[in-house]
């Protein structure tokens, strides 16, 4: 399955400890993994398994305590994220990564279109915000404020915002976590479309096993370690998923 695919992100021996109040949490205990260009991947694990921490490190939002992370772009240029300065990490996020968060994190004072524009304006080769919003099925609701949108719609705006810069990597932290089943499926369909049509590598964090069925690979995390990597022979369309 890995053959013929180019690595986009590679992690080796990642550990991460941080203090939370008075306790030290060992979030990652030596993770090795890779994300390939164009693939759809699920990071599966219970809460506290370290999946969010891993995603944050892969996205350049956080740094590992130990271990290496490398990003290799489509032209083959490699960048060591572990040694990158804050400025370099900012550039990495700005040009290569799109984020989708569980709680959407839209800016409430901006409309849907403006929430997307705030990212396209600083991107190198973005698609127009309208196109991105049409892609997620919100072409009709461009000028609505977050408070005027449902949860699913807000999450789709967040996805449009993440994909509008045409990133190589789309990192989604529990994108359906705050949504009901029907809305969740709609959001997954959008991610599926994005992956297919833009060729972006999509990594989805979830604790929902079912979502794994729509992807190329599933990486299971447990207690800060990779427990199992499972490759799917066939991706099941998101619309067929049930939970």
């Amino acid at each position, binding site marked *: 399955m890995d053959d013929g695919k180019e690595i986009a992100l590679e992690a080796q021996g990642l550990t991460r400890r941080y203090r*939370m109040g008075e306790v030290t949490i060992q979030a990652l205990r030596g993770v090795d993994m890779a994300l390939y260009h164009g693939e759809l991947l699920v990071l599966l694990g219970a809460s506290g398994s370290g999946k969010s921490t891993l995603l944050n490190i892969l996205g350049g939002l*956080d740094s590992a305590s130990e271990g290496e992370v490398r990003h290799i772009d489509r032209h083959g240029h490699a960048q060591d994220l572990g040694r990158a300065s804050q400025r370099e990490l900012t550039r990495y*996020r700005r040009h290569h990564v799109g984020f989708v968060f569980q*709680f959407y*994190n839209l800016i409430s*004072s901006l409309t849907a279109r*403006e929430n997307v524009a705030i990212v396209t304006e*600083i991107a190198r080769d973005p698609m127009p915000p309208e196109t991105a919003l049409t892609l997620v099925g919100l072409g009709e609701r461009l000028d609505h404020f977050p408070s005027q949108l449902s949860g699913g719609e807000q999450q789709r705006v967040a996805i449009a*915002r993440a994909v509008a810069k045409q990133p190589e990597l789309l990192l989604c932290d529990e994108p359906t976590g705050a949504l009901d089943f029907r809305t969740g499926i709609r959001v997954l369909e959008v991610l599926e479309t994005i992956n297919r049509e833009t060729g972006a590598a999509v990594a989805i964090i979830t604790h929902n096993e079912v979502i794994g069925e729509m992807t190329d690979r599933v990486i299971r995390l447990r207690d800060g370690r990779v427990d199992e990597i499972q490759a799917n022979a066939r991706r099941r369309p998101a619309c067929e998923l049930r939970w």
Partner: protein
Amino acid sequence: MTRTLDRKLLRDLWRLKGQALAIAVVIAGGVMTLIIAVTTLDALSGARDRFYASHHFAEVFADVKRAPLGLVERLQEIEGVNLIEPRVQAAMRLSLAGFRDPIRGLALSIPDGRQPLLNRLHLVAGSLPEAGRDDQAVVSDAFAEAHGLVPGDRLEAIINGRRVPLRLTGIALSPEFLYQVAPSDLMPDYRRYAVLWMNRRALANAHGMQGAFNRLSLTLQAGARREEVIDALDLVLARYGGTGAWSRDEQPSHRFIEEELAQQRIQATVLPAIFLSVSAFLLNVVMGRLIQTQREQVAMLKAFGYHDRELARHFALLAGAIVLLGWALGVSLGAWAASGLATIYRDYFRFPEMPFRIPAWALLLSLAIVSLAALLGTWRAVWRAVRRPPAEAMRPPAPQRFRRTWLERLLPGALLGHAGRIVMRNLGRHPAKASLSVTGIALSVALLMMGAYQLDAVEAMVDQQYRQVLRMDVELTFNEPTSTRALGELRHLPGVLAVEGWRRVPVTLIHGHREERTALLGMEARPQLRQVLDAQGRPQRLPEAGMMLTRWLAESLDARVGDTLEVQVMEGRRQRLALTLTALVDEPLGVGAYLPRRRLNTLLDEGPAISGAWLLVDDAHREALNAALWEMPGVAAIGLLDEAERGIRDYLDETLLLFALIFVAIASSIAFGVVYNDARIALAERARELATLRVLGYTRVEVARILLGEIALVTLVAIPPGWALGIVFSRLLNQAFSNDMFRIPLVLTPQAFGIAAGGVLVASLLVGIMLVRRLNRLDMVSSLKASA
């Protein structure tokens, strides 16, 4: 840079409008104080300088008993003298049909039918007397206005005991009488004090000064040494009864304006310095907190790949917009208040024009100070927000360490209740934040207290002067030293209950290299109508030998009790005496040197003479007494103390107290701004927590109690240190405001403490009411869900 980020800026500003406005008010308060003080100062000094220059205000003055006009040529040869002009001046009394109170006045000569060389008149109406007419006069503008006089009106003057009927030809302003105050008075009384200008020949005839003069005015050549000119003049004039030439600095009107300007200058530095630094500090704090509430947005924008400098610019613009709003508000309100004050000053100082403008440097300075303070606060908060890895900033904040607070351990749990415990722990968790809140409110308390102090202190000052020091009803000044036998005559006038004579001579006090011009006042050994008080406010007895000095005067001479001072008498035989300082006198208004009258008579080698008398009068016989006094030719001036007191109270009410009131208003707005911001930020920080409590079944009232409890506690804790700081501010102000015209006592009444505490409590209450309405709109579900 990016349009969308800028749009976010505008929408954020709109969303934060309540807080932004409250911060703007804090800024406006500081800026306003500076603008008011600086603009008023600029208007006063600008108007004065212009008027002095255009009307050739003299630089040196000298009085003589009588000197021949021919002497002027000799004086002109004194090195350094530029223009010199002899004049005749005469103290006079006026009578005006329909006005029963005695009117004092000063008549001055002008060249026949012409403008004088120096101290030119600014005619507001009419014209100068025609040449050769001895029944025409120009009258001072303030007096004419007080009585509604117009050119053509008639009045009668008594000059040197002779009645002189006069017709007014004009109404004029003079640079010598911008501030028109009778000798020995502190405040102008425009109804009872007048200045008249008459043709030289007419006044010389009336005053027996044909071919002679008794006052000189002169200007100096560029580079001339004023002291040397004065010494040379004194040398020549001594044999003509010269009482010592003096410079502009001691000219009463000029001096008063100088004092006023000095006071304005202090007000323009001390008050804005205090207000601006307080508002800069508060601005720093509130801006910082405001940014902190946006921490998650900062993290998210960073996750998208925004650079730190782009974010810094974004928040700097946010702060900048608020600063600009506050500054503009401060400038316009300040200009508005200052223009109001300028109209009041125009009534006191008779300037023909009063230019009103805001100096550019004041605009720039105030903008720079508030911008710097805001940027500093913003920068720190933005820096804190951008410095953290975005992942960390986006994680819901880790549950922080909570401890039982020491207060909780002291108070039984039942007393605090759940709400109380949450309040205590919230404050205990963020001691730095809580102490900043307390400091902010304490500063507001202190500002309020400083304002209230001014109100009280001025009241106390006037009370002390007119209830304890000056206890007479009428002060009579004689044309010349008169035998004490006159006292017996006065005692028998209608309505007179008590009489005390006094003797006054102008002197120069010399101690080491310091000199002060003042007067030696000889009184009864234990004066009843004019008391000399000690530091505790107790009346003192005058010393058998030596003299007493006003504390302020002694300090400016650097003299201590027991020191011997040289006393140069400036009239008569011009004795040079050595007198020991035996005690200090504490009095709020004016300065002087005091000793028993008999002893002064002895020192002056004269019989039992008095310069005037104080009367205690039965009000019922006021009119009869006035009529009787009017008939006494030896009385040069009749001063009514209740009128003087009213004058000074009116003046203080309209100027100082208005200032104080404006500052109390500004301080209250600042207090409100601070409390409001504190509360809004507390609400933002606790929204999730409070919503959770609501979800768990707490009622609105119970939830409100937590938030309001926090505000109330912070406010209450802030009051005592605020009082302490208020005392410090008041002391600072008190020291800055003391001058030789008046010293404001440091009295802090319970009322001042009350106003200070009440102000912030009312502000907190208002904020509490506004907050409860906001709490009612708290959306439980979305507060729980949304993290941005």
